[in-house]
């Protein structure tokens, strides 16, 4: 929102408004050039208590199924001492909410919840002052509770709405505002259901793909037959006679709009394009060899604080030494709601409803693409049909806006599943080389770790090793790649934890025991022991275990598998112990952990993107397998609640231990060590009882 728009908003709004002016934390995150973030531009409302008592919170975070709408409502209700249903959240509307970097990296709980608490606490204090003033008493005598200011000695009370009535108060958030510590939470810290769940079970909620505007047309985009292809020529004569359909061409971009979706599909099919292809040598069969050759920098990026000691000395002193390679395939997010956008131009202002994790970044992209100032673009993100890190970008919004601009009408564009599985980005594939040595007690003496392409998240080891070298090697990926739930933490945990298992086997030490011997971190040990205990570690033959730390969350996973007569691998049981500081919403946390485990099963066992000649072969749900009901193991979740530690995010980290725990369980059950994700895309029989070759994948 421009300074002018925001002022208009503030003038319109009555009651009590809590603002933030150029706070250090957000100014730093904004990435704006110096001078650009002057106060009027960043002036923004975080909270409004209207004259009718309605409490509205404004946040740039979006809801994609992680239930941030619920947890942030809890935070506001807690500080204001009101029931949750009296708080309304406006999320991800760039004209109404304060600037935000985006919803990723599990930052909503650790960063946004305290911010909303500060805003709410500021408002609460203002209301307390108003009540004290009205009653001419000391503010300390005013008690705030259940949406009211109360003066117990005289039994007087007044609602927040009545206090806000006739007021025109604006207050800046006090950054030193003390917020309620977890042990005193009254609303947070308890299970609360998804706030607007009724709208989902009745089908009433409108996702971006459900938004309807007057005079709206339906769009389709012409896709090249392969990555990198350019449009050499386009014969549009087939569409010229079609009433109610039109072609939009702009350089390499071509699409159609039509009054009805089937007509749009017919028009798209009537286009006769000529494409210029470029060589696309990499395939899903050669990718791991390719990546090593595609490094962008000879030296790589050394992980901070993880390059010390002497690997040579460590290896020399070691009793058992290992050198192994692990691989991780590209996988797809498959959000059930594909990319979707409805775009509308009105007097030079563009409004787009779209499902994205980064509404303000999409606004910037659109402003730049259409050469308009940012205040001429409004991005609105309705609660979205999931993302998992897969919706950081705004390509669909841009396409819809192009079609809408050219046709002069609002346009709805919903990507097909084929488009989503081809033209979205993927979780990076990767190759990880590990070289290590342990003494005869299983204590690590040397640890060398090189990750090619999949990323540096959680690349450092939580195990104590006196001699280390850990390095990430960025590569030019043949496929478009980007974020994913947990991102590289899954790949790095798979390699690290699988390797710890291999070391344990070399030294004939129990997998749980070798971890304990090398771990000093008490929080990690606590989840490891909790998972092992719940699982009954050592009581089953077919068990695997893994643990790790990422984004402030501590996780340990135990898996049990059953191998059927034809080599099929079934995960029969998963136990997850998780600790992320003070628990905000136990049931929704459990929901996230269960979901992460289910999703993790896919990437662990069978998910993999197949491609050749610049084409995605797994471009339909019938060709890209995702976990289903029959893949569901018995899931047990152990949550360790630490009220003494600030809450960390929890949507991502519980996924990281799934694959290595299952790999360990397969080894325990069969003696087969698999070093590639997915572990068993075609079952175990293809391995012919032989361990998979390092780096070759399961073949």
């Amino acid at each position: 929102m421009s300074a002018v728009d925001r002022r208009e908003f503030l003038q319109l709004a009555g009651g009590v408004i809590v603002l933030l002016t150029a706070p250090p934390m957000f100014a730093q995150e904004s990435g704006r050039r110096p001078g650009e973030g002057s106060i009027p531009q960043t002036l923004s409302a975080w909270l409004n208590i209207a004259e009718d008592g309605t409490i509205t919170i404004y946040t740039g975070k979006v809801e994609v199924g992680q239930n941030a709408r619920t947890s942030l409502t809890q935070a506001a209700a807690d500080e204001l001492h009101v029931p949750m249903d009296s708080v309304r959240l406006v999320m991800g509307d760039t004209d109404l909410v304060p600037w935000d970097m985006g919803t990723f990296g599990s930052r909503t709980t650790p960063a946004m919840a305290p911010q909303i608490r500060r805003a709410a606490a500021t408002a609460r204090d203002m209301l307390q002052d108003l009540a004290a003033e009205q009653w001419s008493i000391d503010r300390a005598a005013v008690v705030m509770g259940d949406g009211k200011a109360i003066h117990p000695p005289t039994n007087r009370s007044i609602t927040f709405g009545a206090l806000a009535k006739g007021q025109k108060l604006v207050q800046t958030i006090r950054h030193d505002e003390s917020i309620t510590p977890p042990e005193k939470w009254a609303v947070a810290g308890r299970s609360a259901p998804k706030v607007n769940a009724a709208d989902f079970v009745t089908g009433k909620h409108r996702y971006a793909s459900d938004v309807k505007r007057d005079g709206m047309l339906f769009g389709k985009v012409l896709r090249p037959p392969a990555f990198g292809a350019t449009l050499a020529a386009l014969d549009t004569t087939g569409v010229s006679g079609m009433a109610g359909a039109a072609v939009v061409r702009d350089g390499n971009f071509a699409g159609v709009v039509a009054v009805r979706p089937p007509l749009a599909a017919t028009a798209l099919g009537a286009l006769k394009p000529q494409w210029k292809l470029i060589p696309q040598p990499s395939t899903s069969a050669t990718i791991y060899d390719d990546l090593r050759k595609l490094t962008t920098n000879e030296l790589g990026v050394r992980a901070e604080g993880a390059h010390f000691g002497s690997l040579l000395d460590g290896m020399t002193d070691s009793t058992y030494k290992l050198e192994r390679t692990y691989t991780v395939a590209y996988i797809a997010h498959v959000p059930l709601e594909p990319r979707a956008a409805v775009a509308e131009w009105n007097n030079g202002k563009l409004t787009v409803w779209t499902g994205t994790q980064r509404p303000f970044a999409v606004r910037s992209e659109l402003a730049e693409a259409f050469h308009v100032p940012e205040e001429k673009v409004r991005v609105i993100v309705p609660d979205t049909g999931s993302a998992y890190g897969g919706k950081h970008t705004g390509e669909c919004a841009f396409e819809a806006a192009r079609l809408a601009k050219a046709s002069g009408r609002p346009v709805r564009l919903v990507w097909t599943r084929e488009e989503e599985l081809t033209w979205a980005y993927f979780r990076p594939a990767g190759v990880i080389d590990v070289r290590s040595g342990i003494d005869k007690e299983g204590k690590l003496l040397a640890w060398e770790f090189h990750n090619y392409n999949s990323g540096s998240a959680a690349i450092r080891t939580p195990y104590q090793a006196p001699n280390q070298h850990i390095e990430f090697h960025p590569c030019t990926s043949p496929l478009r790649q980007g974020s994913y739930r947990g991102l590289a933490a899954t790949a790095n945990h798979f390699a690290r934890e699988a390797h710890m298992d291999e070391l344990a086997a070399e030294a004939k030490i129990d997998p749980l025991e070798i971890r304990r011997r090398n771990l000093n971190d008490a929080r990690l040990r606590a989840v490891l022991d909790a998972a092992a205990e719940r699982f009954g570690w050592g009581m089953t033959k077919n068990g695997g275990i893994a643990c790790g730390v990422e984004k402030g969350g501590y996780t340990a996973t135990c898996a049990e598998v059953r191998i059927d007569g034809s080599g099929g691998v079934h995960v029969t049981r998963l136990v997850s112990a998780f600790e992320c500081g003070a628990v905000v919403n136990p049931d929704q946390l459990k929901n996230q952990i269960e979901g992460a485990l289910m999703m993790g099963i896919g990437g662990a066992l069978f998910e993999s993107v197949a491609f050749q000649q610049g084409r995605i072969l797994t471009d339909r749900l019938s060709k890209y397998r995702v976990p289903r009901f029959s893949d569901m193991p018995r899931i047990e979740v152990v949550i360790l609640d630490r009220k003494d530690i600030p809450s960390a995010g929890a949507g991502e980290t519980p996924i990281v231990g799934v694959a290595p725990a299952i790999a360990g369980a397969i080894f325990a059950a069969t003696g087969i060590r698999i070093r590639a994700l997915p572990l068993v895309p075609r079952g175990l029989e293809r391995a012919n009882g032989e361990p998979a070759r390092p780096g070759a994948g399961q073949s």
Partner: protein
Amino acid sequence: MAALELLINGTRFRIDVDPQQSLLSVLRDEFDLTGTKYGCGEAQCGACTVLIDGQPARSCVTTAGGAAGHAITTIEGIAPAGQLHPVQKAFLEIGAMQCGYCTPGMIVEGVALLRRRPEATEGEITEAMEGHVCRCGAYPRIVTALRLAEQFMKGKQG
């Protein structure tokens, strides 16, 4: 284009559409009944599930012409007059969703299943729901919710 007679959630409509147009598209784009979702377009995910004469059907691979003359029930018709169906109540009670995009399809399938098998076992539920994808992984909760819905429905009858 042809004039089709469609019976949707108890109301009879006459509409000029291509009989080959998918029922999903007709419901969403002609009638603005957007609770029925597109997920894959090839009957693999179940997000588009509706009831046709009480039987679950994938509206993405059902033509409007083929559905004409039959009773079509969408998620919007599962709770007429705002009175939630026991399956919907159970989904709320258990919190059997995350992003909610698969939820309408799951509920419509669940309603049909429990009508057919009021005491469906966990195994029967898993089997009947196999054609539905919840990418958020709420599967265990959905099974629990359907078991709870059985209890709700039994209570109502008893």
